[in-house]
């Protein structure tokens, strides 16, 4: 059954169209506020919370950049709900992380109209600023990316995006579709009663699905999956052991930026910066004694492995960890590869559904017997 609304636009008017759309929604009271990527005078494009309809003009959701994973932003806005209806325009990786944060009671979607957008990838922040300076527009990027080429002026979208199997966002009320819709149109798909209601109130009709969207999406997903498998194969070969992991992390300075940027690392403060890991001098000496030398800061591998045990079940592979590393360590494959294994063990997939319970919160008397292999 089809519930798509076509939004045709002339070249260069996509953002204008979208601005009108959301302006309308706000004025018609569909929502009181909007959270969406917007052009910031000096800071490129950032998620922005708008409550004045007249100011949505700067909206630019398809700008290929995600300075901060939006799940964190959504969490800060809804962790203690304001009670005001808010539309949030986010990408798949942000929404999947958000689903996990909801399960962890860090976000609440009751007042939220969740709008997912097709994602063709994001550039690292600095690359994006550079490309913008060279005059690349979101539309230009979309056109190029849909044609299968994301490389531009020596920059390419992040590694995480290249292997992301979720260009299309699920668990949303509305979807802004640009894949397989033809270059002059954007389609708004409604997936929930909440979405239908929104479209209706916004005075938008219901129409057919764009021909060829499905095929286009599938093709893109397939491409990314293959890329993913290849990447993992390559990664696992290059990093089969803790030794190899140490090489990979040779330049880690224990700044913990990776967990600060990680949308599902939801602790206020990481255990590794709490007193638990504030050791006494004689302890350091003791460790040093053992081999005569001790690399400082300590506990680097310990930190990364522990982090895996904490977040790998929720990891959505958004790649913010890699983007955040000041020493350009490519952390994403490290965590995503493990996540693939741990999530598979419990037939769980981070962000797949609100209903699925997180693996470590449920347990049965007669499950996982293979772990001990004992039957009385």
């Amino acid at each position, binding site marked *: 059954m089809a519930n798509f609304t076509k939004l045709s636009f002339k070249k260069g008017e996509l953002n204008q169209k979208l601005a009108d759309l959301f302006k309308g929604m706000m004025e018609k009271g569909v929502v009181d506020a909007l959270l969406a990527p917007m052009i910031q005078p000096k800071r490129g494009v950032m998620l922005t919370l708008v409550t004045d309809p007249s100011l949505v003009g700067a909206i630019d959701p398809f700008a290929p950049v995600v300075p901060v994973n939006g799940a964190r932003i959504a969490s800060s806005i809804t962790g203690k709900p304001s009670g005001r209806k808010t539309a949030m325009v986010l990408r798949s990786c942000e929404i999947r992380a958000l689903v996990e944060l909801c399960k962890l009671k860090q976000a609440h979607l009751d007042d939220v109209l969740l709008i997912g957008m097709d994602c063709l990838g994001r550039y690292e922040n600095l690359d994006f600023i550079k490309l913008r300076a060279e005059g690349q527009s979101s539309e230009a990027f979309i056109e190029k990316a849909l044609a299968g080429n994301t490389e531009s002026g020596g920059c390419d979208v992040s590694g995480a995006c290249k292997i992301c199997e979720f260009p299309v966002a699920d668990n949303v009320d509305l979807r802004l579709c640009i894949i397989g819709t033809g270059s002059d149109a954007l389609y708004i798909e409604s997936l929930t009663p909440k979405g239908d209601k929104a479209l209706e109130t916004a005075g938008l009709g219901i129409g057919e699905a764009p021909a060829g969207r499905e095929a286009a999406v599938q093709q893109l997903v397939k491409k990314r999956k293959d890329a993913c498998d290849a990447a993992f194969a390559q990664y696992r070969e290059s990093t*089969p052991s803790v030794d190899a992991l140490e090489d990979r992390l040779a330049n880690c300075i224990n700044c913990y930026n990776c967990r600060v940027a990680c949308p599902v690392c939801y602790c206020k403060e990481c255990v590794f910066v709490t007193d638990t890991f504030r050791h006494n001098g004689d302890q350091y000496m003791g460790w040093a004694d053992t081999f005569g030398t001790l690399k400082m800061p300590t506990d680097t591998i310990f930190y990364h*492995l522990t982090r895996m*045990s904490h977040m790998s079940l929720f990891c959505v592979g958004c790649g913010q960890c890699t983007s955040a590393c000041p020493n350009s360590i490519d952390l994403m494959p490290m965590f995503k590869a493990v996540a693939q*294994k741990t999530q598979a*063990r419990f037939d769980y997939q981070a962000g797949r559904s609100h209903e699925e319970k997180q693996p470590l919160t449920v347990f049965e008397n007669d499950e996982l017997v293979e772990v001990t292999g004992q039957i009385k």
Partner: protein
Amino acid sequence: MSEFEPKIVGFFCNWCTFTAADLAGTSRLSYPHNIKIIRMMCSGMVDPKYVIKAFLNGADGVLIGGCWPGDCHYINGNLKARRRVAMLTEILKEYGIDEKRFWLRWIAASEGTMLREVVNEMTAKLKELGPSPLNRETPGKKTPGNETPEKVNPEKVKMIG
């Protein structure tokens, strides 16, 4: 250079496996002395951090001993432990720490013999596997605290009674 002696860290539940250990002790069931027991109140209390640390510190194996399902003093801590072990195994495997090095076993208080068998079996298995890739203790290297405290004449220490 004598045969490789694996180091096993045993996180034992106070209510079952730890007692089984005592039982084995009192019944003089001889053990390979490779296992280093750390008493936990419950197998469900074993944080993944402990296991990771044990391996990073060069343990060749880690054995968690808990109560049989239904037997847990704290109702279901052992079931929670089992899920965590499954998760952690996946992570360790990914970085070359064989799952044969990381065991969870149900051992009731009265199963001293089983405990001995488990420890023997694990030791044998680890001898096959050889030292853990993270066991970097270069054999022969003298590590402080390892040496027997040298003999001293009684005058040096305060003696009473």
